[in-house]
């Protein structure tokens, strides 16, 4: 499994993450992982659920990504918020 897929799984496992956002992607054989780019830095773009302070959530996400991607800088883009009640 490619690192980007591990990063994707780690992010989606967090309750405050609604989805990843497609401003960029990792292109793999057979699929691409939207919202994750792993190079010398890791970049992720997330859509969060409304409610908790973004800074707290981002710190947790950064820690989770570091567990799977190692000690590299993690750039987090919060590209949108969704209301948990409006999600279907």
């Amino acid at each position, binding site marked *: 499994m490619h690192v980007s897929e591990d990063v994707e799984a780690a992010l989606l496992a967090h309750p405050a993450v609604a989805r990843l956002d497609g401003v960029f992607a990792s292109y793999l054989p057979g699929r691409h992982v939207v919202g994750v780019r792993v190079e010398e830095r*890791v970049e992720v773009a997330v859509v969060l659920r*409304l409610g908790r*302070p*973004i*800074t707290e959530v981002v710190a947790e996400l950064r820690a989770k990504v570091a567990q799977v991607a190692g000690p590299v*800088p993690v750039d987090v883009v919060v590209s949108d918020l969704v*209301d948990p009640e409006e999600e279907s």
Partner: protein
Amino acid sequence: MAQTTAVKPENVPARLADDTAQGRTTIASSVVQKVAGIAAREISGVHALGGGVSRAFGALRERIPGAGTANTAGVAVEVGEKQAAIDLDIVVEYGAGIVDLARAVRRNVITAVERITGLEVIEVNIAVNDIHLPEDDEETESAQARVE
């Protein structure tokens, strides 16, 4: 001679502190916009957002370095690296004290945006565009029945 170092004010949000080592955090302006819009609508007495041309919008541009602009549905925001400025166009319910209402909206928006995004809100400009009357909902009745 010692170098002059800038003293950090106590109340600056502790955001972006270790950004170079651990990575940057970018918060899209639509995120700030949504938070501000929701916070404004929470106050009772606010009938709707928007409704007028966002006239004050252009005046704020370029005030914050590196700012992006976004504007939908009566909420215009400018988001810099550490600060945000917000313009609101609101329609109030008839009967609400506009000065008090605006103060409440401003307070709620600042609290919500600072808590959720960690950005310092430098200003919230509120334009009251219209007053919503209870009769507006049932306008067919008021038009007739004056002369038979």
